[in-house]
């Protein structure tokens, strides 16, 4: 344990995802020794991102305005929605250039151990969007791991009654993996080979 401010900084850093106690300590001491100007820039960036960046009121993707660039872009195909877990998955799919439709960011996957059920995800918002009759197909692009698969099953079952085409990304994605780490070629192929999600 360190005194006051140093320990507080270590504790705060330790709360970030993927940062254990040791890394938190290392970062804290790096900050202590760093040039004050560098740290000011970091602080400004942190504060600005929280002030300026919001979540798109339509799709849930990160955005500096009420709606994100993709939702505002009239050239995007309004008939297809690709459902992903996180904003970073939107970036991963965009990199493939295989997809011209719009997105819906759920904000996670069904994960009972972490206390995440369908109510905690942006599923109600998805249903609201489907009232727009322009939408013809939903592509489910949740992660190819257990929680992502369970979320896909949940969505497929729920959307079955609505009468929209629901597809799931083709396998070929490494099982147990994370969508954001899939390379562009594999992910692009997974889009082309997507299969009907409603058995």
């Amino acid at each position, binding site marked *: 344990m360190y005194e006051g401010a140093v320990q507080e900084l270590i504790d705060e850093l330790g709360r970030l995802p993927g940062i254990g106690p040791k890394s938190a300590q290392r970062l804290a001491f790096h900050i202590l020794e760093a040039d004050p100007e560098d740290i000011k820039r970091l602080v400004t960036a942190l504060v600005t991102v929280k002030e300026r960046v919001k979540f798109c009121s339509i799709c849930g993707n990160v955005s500096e305005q009420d709606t994100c660039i993709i939702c505002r872009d009239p050239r995007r195909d309004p008939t297809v929605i690709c459902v992903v877990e996180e904003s970073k998955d939107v970036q991963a799919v965009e990199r493939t250039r295989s997809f011209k439709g719009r997105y819906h960011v759920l904000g996670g996957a069904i994960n*009972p*151990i972490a206390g995440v059920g369908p*109510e905690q995800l942006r599923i109600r918002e998805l249903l609201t969007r489907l009232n727009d009759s322009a939408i013809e197909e939903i592509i489910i692009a949740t992660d190819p791991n257990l929680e992502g698969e369970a979320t896909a*099953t*949940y969505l497929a079952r*729920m959307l079955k009654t609505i009468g929209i085409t629901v597809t799931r990304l083709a396998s070929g994605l490494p099982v147990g993996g994370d969508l954001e780490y899939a390379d562009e070629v594999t992910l692009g192929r997974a889009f082309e080979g997507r299969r009907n999600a409603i058995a």
Partner: protein
Amino acid sequence: MSRVYLAHLSLTDFRTYTQVELPLEPGVTVLIGPNGQGKTNLVEAVAFLSTLSSHRVSADGPLLRFGTERALIRARLVHGGQNTSLELEINASRANRARINRANPVRARDILGICRTVLFAPEDLALVKGDPGNRRRFLDELLVTLIPRSAAIRSDYERVLKQRNALLKSAKSQHYSRAGVSEGQQATLDVWDQHMAVAGAQLLAARLELLERLKPHLAMAYRQLTDGSKELKANYRSTLEGQLSDDGETDLGSPDADVQLAGLGVPELTRRYVQAFADSRRRELERGLSLVGPHRDEVELMLGSAPARGYASHGETWSAALALRLASYYVLLEDAQMEGNAPILILDDVFAELDTDRRTKLASIVSGAEQVLVTAAVAADIPRELRGVQIRVLPGGIVSDGE
């Protein structure tokens, strides 16, 4: 069948050993030394390289030498004249890793099936006397040794089970509230039912198939070890066939139902699980726990007409435990006819506990194996059939050759 044997074992910060080198020969090697000197530690390392689990502890922590963060098990296997080097890193605070032939590190799971072992130990008595978890683990571990990719089947099932249990636990309080379990929660449960049915059916099918392969060998091994007056049988009792009583306990299905279940195939087993989960939904919500599935199944051992558990004598219990291990050895040998990967036998401290008759019988059976590693506190415990190379394990973790 090509010869497979362990030619060299090297340990770093494993249990008592800071660093130890142990060169080995095919055939019988006996490790001898006073209690607590590290004989079991050596063979435990060999078995860990094979199964990624220890016969003494369920967590990896105790394998790391006190005060260290990382242990290394290194081995050179000779496989039909070819050398294979294996290196397994056991880490306190991150995932274990392995290297095969000094290539880049891979997941520890990727070395399963390369070094096959069958370990006999006094702890095996729990296979007969202990709770069903011991027998399920026996079957699952043999499954992974035989078919390494089934490790994924097992871990998938465990993950689904954990998720589903978490969901049932949180839904339990809803179940007892005035509002009851919401439609959304029921729908979420349906989803986990589906996924658990798929994972459970794969695990069940794999276990049933393996048990059918084991059955004849088990009966034979028991006959070899005893005078043959009683027959040892194993029946798979599935919660899928059983009736859930109101207190959530399961009456398991009839003993011979396993042969029929084994013939059903994964899609039909999946369908039956979905149905079974639906039928037990209310009781599972009451208990907040998954009551049906491979995690609650039993491998029942019968000696003649009586169950071995709770009825077998001490000597019969030993014979049944040894027979289970011998049967695994026979199944692996049968498989090795095609694979060319015969198992190394490890006998940790078993002879001291056996009477002369069983000692001699066991010794003459195992002496035919490609490589046998035996530990004993005193040389007098080793039957004449197994007099091979003797290695003394002395204080200070030093292993010296003492013909």
